[in-house]
């Protein structure tokens, strides 16, 4: 197993503690992976999932992360047909803002649309946005700013007052089902959130448009990315190479801002009771290196680095995936693995097929 060791300055070495596995005979890496890798979900909510991926190479962890960021398909608004827009937000800016709205639509229910001319109900979802800001009346969906100190309706209703402003949000986006969409979609298409501000209108201004959404991947445009962020870090490993006892243990515990260490009492029959520091929560460590920093004029400030070694496991990845709302977080991970698998499959078939035409040397 490999580790990366962090010293006071920089990452110093990557060393192999032992390389007992993989004997001379060819055992494919796939079997090695099968034997020692595992996945463990540690936390899963509607928005976020954290899981451990253990026993694989960084390139696999990184490929997984990059696929989640850029190649898992989702649906987003792609073309906007504007009939009327008298608001201050220009057409192209409005269209861009609409594009960025996450939509709760399963991309698996749809096919890819390559040319906007070929739009049909199996590859396009349509939303209508029709808002007219009333003149001199309180707009029905006008919102008061939360921090408004007084309820002076008279002032608020006057031109320039906030009740004169019509707020256009994702709630105003109306799904217009096309063809059989109402039957084949399990639930109506809608934006993930109802309260995303699209634009604001003054009395008399109006917006009328039709927005067409299609399937895409974030390599094309970042709006298709299913994740807010997908990242991994390697599991920290903190070794206490010499026993850290007594006052030094307390000093070490107090130094760590993330409370990685605990103090354990050593009970012995002879001698006075003593205490010892133990590494209790290595997962919380952020590798801030405070515990190995040389600090002057502080008890035990000068040689803590001789006791504590900071390392990272080279094959233990703590993933964290936050969804942007279109897909459930576990689904994103699952899709990403499936995409990688499909890619390998395609190349394999193609290389095998081309075996005849390309000489095999």
């Amino acid at each position, binding site marked *: 197993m490999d580790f990366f060791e962090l010293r006071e300055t920089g990452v110093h070495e990557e060393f192999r503690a032992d390389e007992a596995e993989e004997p001379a005979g060819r055992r*494919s890496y796939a079997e090695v992976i099968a034997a020692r890798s595992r996945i463990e979900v540690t936390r899963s909510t509607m928005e976020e999932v954290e899981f451990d991926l253990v026993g694989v190479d960084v390139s696999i962890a990184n490929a997984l992360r990059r696929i989640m960021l850029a190649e898992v398909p989702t649906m987003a608004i792609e073309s906007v047909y504007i009939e009327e827009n008298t608001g201050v937000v220009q057409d192209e800016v409005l269209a861009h803002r609409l594009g960025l709205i996450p939509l709760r639509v399963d991309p698996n229910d749809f096919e890819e649309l390559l040319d906007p001319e070929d739009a049909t109900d199996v590859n396009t979802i349509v939303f209508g946005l029709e808002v007219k800001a009333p003149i001199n009346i309180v707009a029905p969906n006008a919102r008061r700013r939360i921090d408004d100190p007084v309820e002076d309706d008279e002032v608020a209703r006057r031109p320039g007052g906030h009740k004169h402003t019509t707020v256009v949000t994702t709630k105003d986006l109306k799904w217009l089902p096309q063809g059989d969409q109402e039957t084949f979609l399990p639930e109506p298409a809608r934006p993930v959130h109802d309260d995303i501000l699209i634009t604001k209108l003054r009395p008399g201004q109006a917006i009328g448009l039709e927005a067409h959404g299609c399937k895409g991947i974030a390599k094309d445009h970042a709006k298709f990315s299913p994740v807010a962020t997908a990242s991994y870090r390697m599991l920290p490993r903190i070794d206490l190479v010499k026993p850290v006892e007594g006052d030094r243990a307390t000093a070490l515990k107090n130094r760590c801002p993330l409370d990685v260490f605990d103090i354990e009492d050593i009970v012995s029959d002879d001698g006075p009771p003593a205490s010892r520091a133990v590494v209790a929560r290595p997962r919380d460590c952020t590798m801030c290196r405070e515990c190995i920093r040389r600090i002057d004029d502080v008890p035990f400030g000068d040689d803590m680095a001789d006791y504590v070694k900071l390392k990272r496991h080279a094959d233990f990845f703590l993933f964290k995936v936050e969804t942007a709302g279109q897909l459930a977080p576990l689904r994103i991970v699952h899709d990403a*693995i499936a995409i990688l698998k499909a890619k*390998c499959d395609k190349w394999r078939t193609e290389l095998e097929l081309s075996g005849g035409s390309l000489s095999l040397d």
Partner: protein
Amino acid sequence: MNAPERHKAYLLEDDEARVEYAKDQKIPNAGLFTIYKEDHTIGNLVRMQLLRDSDVRFAGYKLPHPLEHRCLVKVQTTGAKPKEVFLRSISDLHSEFDYLDRYFREEVLRFKEAT
């Protein structure tokens, strides 16, 4: 105006192969694989997989230009045919992701039951 088509980054052209192989004319047992519409995600993955193979003497990848969506993988072997070695690596990768896929499904089931 002269912006490249957006779909060029990820969609194969009609007449484009997904992978191409060209034998190296100067170095023995070496060849160049061109994987179209792929980037570092796959380049690094394939390179690492090739380097695990004891038949591989050299493996490296590069993206020739940020606006050209292809990834070049150069392989030199100790004697085996580069294409065979490459194919073996791809198969290995496939079964690795197969395992991961299975482990992930199992784990999700376990997690859902536990909570």
